[in-house]
């Protein structure tokens, strides 16, 4: 009978499916489920990559900060202090000599100067497409590794092969000494070396970088336990032979990978997660009462602002740019929309860096509707039909943009609309092609603690994030002079002068400085998050 025959066929198909599933669940649910007594768990998102030179986002950074020790760390005042480096010296701010402390990689091999040189060359070599590539731009010979596409990226010609594979300004003098020659003098170079992309990699890494990435070997306080379980877990455990600093007070960390911050928050409430690095805005209102004194905040380096399209006629007059800024009540928006989880910004550099001064923006950032209206009248009114505030719709910005627009409309008497654009990338492309005719939101996270990191990339002519095309020769000159200044004090003096130019020209409206808002469970204590959004791993303890 046909029916019976096909029934058998179907039954066996189902049996095969069941068997396949059973198999995979067996191999998957291994016994290493954080049974460690001194282990704590912490939330991350799926890291993009786990290779030092190509890890610039926060989740990958957090993991690598456990596996590696940087050359320098930062004290309370954000001054660099030696960590993996014995000393970093220069007589002319151009040629730097880095001496290394004794250390071993987790695979037992000693850390040599050569390991740094190789890792940095790998990161700087264009075709490797490392996210942190541009950090190596200060070192001599960078252009040879990163040739420009002769006719732009849209053109038909392929970019030429790089002329060199190694940075000419980088060499290992002996096992413990690295000599770095910069293309221009830069007094802040030691601070730069605290960043993730400057970690070393062991010899074995270069045989197969993609394989290395599944279980990165570093020289830091923790080593990998097993491999990176994509979308699920990265487990690390204390490294017994750690010599570069204090040993951590916990035995192991499970970095649990969450797709959604709200889920992670619920897991924290249910007691399955020890540290939640960012409390989602949606639950900010109830989190304080849910967590009590386990709800924490700490300063962060983020800076949120609105940028003007410098190519638009309507915003040409700096009085117009100032008037709009003066019509915005920053504090009200922070209280209502952000539940006090950020601080209002009235300067162009964050309070976390040396050289920060309060209220450098002056009158222009003070909420004063009457003065704003008057200033706009003096400038002959707003020349466009309405003020647009552009934002990416995928980033949760709608609420504060709409609130800002309401204030502008009410206080300035000019029509204002929030203009959502699906993705930030699209917004940036429109701005770069001078197609977007309104102001738009921008955010900045510090790469290294220096005023220069807030000024150079954002406002200097051709700066890497100067999408709005601000250009001022005097400003460029002052920033460059600060970079090559001999002492930090001199540098800061120059950069402060440069900041004053921004206050005068107002290419952007400073709005908010960020805070880390995080929480933890009852089973951990001494939880703190540093300026780079990383949990401080050497002080956290089991409660």
């Amino acid at each position: 009978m046909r029916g019976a025959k096909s029934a058998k066929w179907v039954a066996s198909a189902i049996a095969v499916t069941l068997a396949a599933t059973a198999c995979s669940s067996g191999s998957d649910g291994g016994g290493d489920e954080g049974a460690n007594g001194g282990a704590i768990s912490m939330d991350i998102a799926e890291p993009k990559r786990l290779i030092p030179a190509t890890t610039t986002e926060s989740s990958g950074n957090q993991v690598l900060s456990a596996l590696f020790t940087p050359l320098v760390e930062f004290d309370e005042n954000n001054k660099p202090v030696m960590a993996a480096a014995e000393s970093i010296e220069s007589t002319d701010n151009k040629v730097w000599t880095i001496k290394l402390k004794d250390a071993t990689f987790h695979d037992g091999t000693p850390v040599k100067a050569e390991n740094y040189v190789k890792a940095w060359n790998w990161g700087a070599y264009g075709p490797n497409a490392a996210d942190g590539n541009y950090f190596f731009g200060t070192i001599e010979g960078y252009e040879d590794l990163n040739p420009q596409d002769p006719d732009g990226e849209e053109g038909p010609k392929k970019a030429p092969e790089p002329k060199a594979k190694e940075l000419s300004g980088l060499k290992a003098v002996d096992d413990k000494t690295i000599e770095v020659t910069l293309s221009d003098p830069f007094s802040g170079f030691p601070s730069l070396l605290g960043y993730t992309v400057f970690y070393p990699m062991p010899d074995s890494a270069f045989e197969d970088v993609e394989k290395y990435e599944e279980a990165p070997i570093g020289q830091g306080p923790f080593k990998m336990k097993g491999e990176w379980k994509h979308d699920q877990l990265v487990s690390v455990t204390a490294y017994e032979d750690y010599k570069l600093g204090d040993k951590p007070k916990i035995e192991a960390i499970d970095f649990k990978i969450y797709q959604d911050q709200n889920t992670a928050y619920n897991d924290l409430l249910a007691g399955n997660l020890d540290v939640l690095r960012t409390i989602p805005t949606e639950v900010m209102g109830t989190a304080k009462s849910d967590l009590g004194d386990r709800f924490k905040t700490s300063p962060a380096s983020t800076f949120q602002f609105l940028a003007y399209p410098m190519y638009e006629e309507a915003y040409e007059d700096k009085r117009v740019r100032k008037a709009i800024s003066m019509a915005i009540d920053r504090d009200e928006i922070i209280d209502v929309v952000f539940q006090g989880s950020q601080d209002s910004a009235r300067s162009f550099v964050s309070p976390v860096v040396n050289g920060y001064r309060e209220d450098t923006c002056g009158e222009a950032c003070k909420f004063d509707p009457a003065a704003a209206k008057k200033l706009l009248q003096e400038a002959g009114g707003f020349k466009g039909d309405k003020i647009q505030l552009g934002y990416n719709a995928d980033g949760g910005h709608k609420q504060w943009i709409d609130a800002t627009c309401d204030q502008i409309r009410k206080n300035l008497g000019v029509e204002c609309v929030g203009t959502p654009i699906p993705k930030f990338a699209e917004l940036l492309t429109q701005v770069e092609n001078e197609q977007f005719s309104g102001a738009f939101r921008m955010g900045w996270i510090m790469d290294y603690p220096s005023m220069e990191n807030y000024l150079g990339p954002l406002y200097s002519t051709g700066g890497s994030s100067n999408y709005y095309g601000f250009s001022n020769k005097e400003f460029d000159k002052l920033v460059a002079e600060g970079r090559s200044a001999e002492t930090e004090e001199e540098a800061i003096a120059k950069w402060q002068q440069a900041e004053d130019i921004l206050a005068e020209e107002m290419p952007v409206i400073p709005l908010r400085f960020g805070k880390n808002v995080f929480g933890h469970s009852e089973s951990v204590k001494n939880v703190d998050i540093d300026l780079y959004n990383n949990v401080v791993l050497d002080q956290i303890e089991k409660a």
Partner: protein
Amino acid sequence: MGRYVARRLLQMIPVFIGTTAIIFALTLAIGGDPVQNLYGERPVPDSVRIALTQQYHLDEPWYVQYGYYLSGLVQGDFGQSLAGRPIADMILESWPHTVRLALIALIVEATIGIAAGLMAGLKRGSFVDNLVLLSTLSVISIPIFVIGNFAQIFIGVKWGLLPVANVIDGWQSYLMPGIVLGSVSLAYIARLTRASVAENLRTDYVRTAKAKGLPQSRIFSVHVLRNSLIPVVTYLGVDIGTLMGGAMVTERIFNVPGVGFNVFKATQIEDGPVLVGFVSMLVLVYLFASLLVDLLYAVLDPRIRYV
């Protein structure tokens, strides 16, 4: 039968090529900038942009990119995601999660759904019937993310009965998302079964069977149940595909690193190769599920023949 299966399998090839080509064209038609999306809000270094553009042929028209993809596929190479992970690995790793989830959902919806439908259909107008109608109506009308979030907060956080999120917590952590995932289909199946049973009870052959004096149990199991299950099986078959791909919302809420989540993520960052890889697998699942359903028809109703 063998010929029928072979023909069905051969038909899958053009369907597969057609669907993947459409997905490829659509992904690229969005006209976004996948390299920038990969970088979020940070500027993309020029050299990185150049390297990625060349590696993934992003500057070529979609059919050329599709050509590269197909030729790789023929050689067993699924390609790499924009972040540099082999797509084959991603598929292999995410599949078991979704299969487990779908299996729980399928068991829940088939057993409870059919049972509830039978009870309601056999005793129409009774209290049970009204209860089933009311509860299925409410489940159908609530969006799945609301059901999911409520379940998570109450069952997971407040009462602590089941794990909140799936992070290597073993099989228990699939239970809640599985049930949530199955709940909507469960409601549909209950209603489908009810209608089907009610209809079959009125048919001529059931009346004849009754007149011949066959025992109740035989009338029910052979004549009513068997015929009533045909539409239900059809629905279940199609639902396998939906469960595999449509679990996007549920997988996100409960942190299950499965197929739905990967499709979601790839859509977000416009990662064409990953999207096509996963959707191709989903297309295959749909095709096999519908083949399975067609074959099951023959078991339930021998009058259906294949030539």
